[in-house]
């Protein structure tokens, strides 16, 4: 039966809280359901002690969650927009990510920071950014970017059970998706998913861009171009084996993401494939990302900027020709 993304993600949180006493929810208005309604009803069910509203102090509440994780709790902190995580960078980059290493293995930080990212019409420059590229450059952080509600369900359960700090990025367009819950088990972290088989080109994407990639692949199939679409699921750790296997089959690769191209996931994947699959490549590796500009308010400008099916198709056609 069809469930909304909000219900599916809430169910993952609900089940993990029932399964493990040490799981706590923290964040602005989370006891009142949270900005997007994901945590609605959880305070009533699991008790106000385990679902706590916090003041609007991103630095302090991220530090609080880190400290609690050091001492045996498994906090799940919601930062309302990834744009606001800029206020918590010291806690994430200098403290949480490095505690295990600096302590020579004595400590771990089993904390999940859930945050919302990406453009969804009219939120303008400080509420629409895709900023995963900063965090995937920080050794010690795990970064997950699910492409659909049931993917989010499986990855969130795995993230909560992991002993490392996880940045869990939910694209705003995920919330508009409805689908039946595919399976009820945690998904493996660090293993990509072949979303669509194909032989002429490999199209790599993650988060909401996977759905756009599948649409582009359908268009291309009508012109006889068979495209294999791979959903990365996890940016750190990055599943290169699956990517190399696919490129060895198709010999052409396009990487698509909503974040700016400069220094994005596409750059790292291209650099690694440039070494690991050098002899398999028959054409340049193409990247399709957002041009180097902030996100404008006007929906027309936002659409003009963000990479869509048209640009992906263009890139694949250029390679295939």
């Amino acid at each position: 039966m069809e469930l909304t993304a909000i219900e599916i993600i809430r169910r993952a949180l609900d089940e993990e809280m029932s399964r493990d006493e040490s799981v706590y929810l923290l964040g602005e208005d989370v006891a009142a359901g949270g900005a997007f309604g994901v945590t609605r009803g959880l305070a009533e069910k699991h008790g106000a002690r385990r679902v706590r509203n916090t003041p609007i102090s991103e630095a302090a509440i991220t530090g609080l969650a880190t400290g609690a994780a050091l001492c045996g709790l498994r906090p799940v902190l919601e930062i309302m927009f990834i744009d606001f995580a800029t206020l918590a960078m010291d806690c994430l980059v200098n403290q949480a990510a490095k505690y295990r290493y600096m302590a020579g293995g004595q400590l771990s930080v089993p904390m999940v920071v859930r945050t919302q990212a990406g453009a969804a019409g009219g939120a303008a420059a400080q509420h629409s950014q895709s900023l995963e590229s900063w965090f995937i450059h920080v050794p010690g952080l795990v970064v997950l970017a699910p492409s659909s509600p049931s993917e989010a369900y499986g990855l969130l359960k795995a993230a909560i059970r992991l002993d490392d700090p996880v940045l869990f990025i939910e694209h705003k367009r995920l919330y508009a998706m409805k689908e039946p819950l595919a399976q009820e088990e945690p998904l493996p972290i660090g293993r990509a998913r072949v979303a669509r088989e194909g032989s002429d080109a490999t199209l790599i994407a993650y988060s909401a861009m996977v759905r756009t990639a599948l649409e582009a692949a359908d268009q291309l199939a009508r012109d006889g171009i068979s495209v294999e679409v791979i959903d990365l699921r996890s940016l750190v750790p990055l599943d290169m084996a699956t990517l190399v296997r696919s490129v060895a089959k198709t010999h052409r690769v396009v990487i698509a993401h909503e974040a700016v191209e400069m220094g994005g996931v596409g750059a790292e994947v291209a650099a690694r494939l440039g070494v690991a699959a050098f002899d398999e490549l028959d054409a340049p590796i193409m990247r399709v990302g957002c041009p180097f500009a902030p996100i404008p308010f006007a929906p027309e400008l936002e659409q003009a900027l963000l990479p869509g099916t048209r640009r992906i198709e263009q890139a694949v056609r250029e390679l295939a020709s």
Partner: protein
Amino acid sequence: MLRIRRFEEQCIQLAESKQFSGHYHVYIGQEATAVSVCNALGPEDFVFSTWRNHGHLLARGAAPDRMMAEIFGKATGYAGGKSGTLHMAVGELGVPATSALVGGNLPLATGAALACKRRGSGVSVCFHGDAALEEGAFYEAMILAAVWKVPALFVCENNSIPPAQRKRGQFTSSTLPAAQLADVPQSLQIRTEIVDGADADQLAESFERLVGEVRRGGGPRFVEVRCTRWPGSFPLWPELPDGPWQIAWAFDGKPDRADLALWLEQSDPLTLYVRKLVSAGAVTRSQLAAMDARAKEEMAGAARYAIESPFPTPDQAYRHVWAEQ
């Protein structure tokens, strides 16, 4: 104040009819604050606002039609559709940038005040809400302003206070355990005052004096304006309880909804001020009606202008990332 009220009502009606997209915030119930502060400012002064900026911009002299066009994301908007309502700014009116992060504009205001002090002219005014006191940026900006003794006026529009408690006693704001919000800036050794957001005359007098003190190099000031959240702004998307404001509500007429009626009596600066002007004989009911008609027409015109304006062409998305050298 009337112009601001009518502008915001237009916004709500246009939003409800899906003419523009994206979340927005209205200034209904706080008009007296923006007007009294901006009346005390000159062209070389700076104003920093937040996502709830329409009232501040109008009081500072921004054109309603270009503002509405920006809210619509049109090419004729002040930022050509790039800022929308959240980040609306008007450089030539001394509103250089508007942050949509809670507390994001506080350090900016301190920095601008530093530049004013170095130049020997101008003051820097920072409008913010009570929630900004939960952000570290608030303390860093306050401490810097105090240590550098810069001409900064921090105007905290505390719209979280139930009317019953407004006049007397103590009340906290949002999630501050402080007995009184004003205790926090006072603990940072910054001269702090509390003003009633419903009393236009008291606001005008206070800000005239305070801007003068700051301009003469008296160092920063913090003012907590206690205003009460307008009932229409409680739901996630603002709505007009009982329709647009009516002059009659200041006199014999009453709105149906009790909470709105109570709010008008205890907290609405516009209703209270209009009643005072008429009873003092400063203006007649008919002059008032004429003024209101002009305001309504001006703001309806702004709506038309926004609706008819063209969207920006896609190539605009790539412009203004860098200032040309």
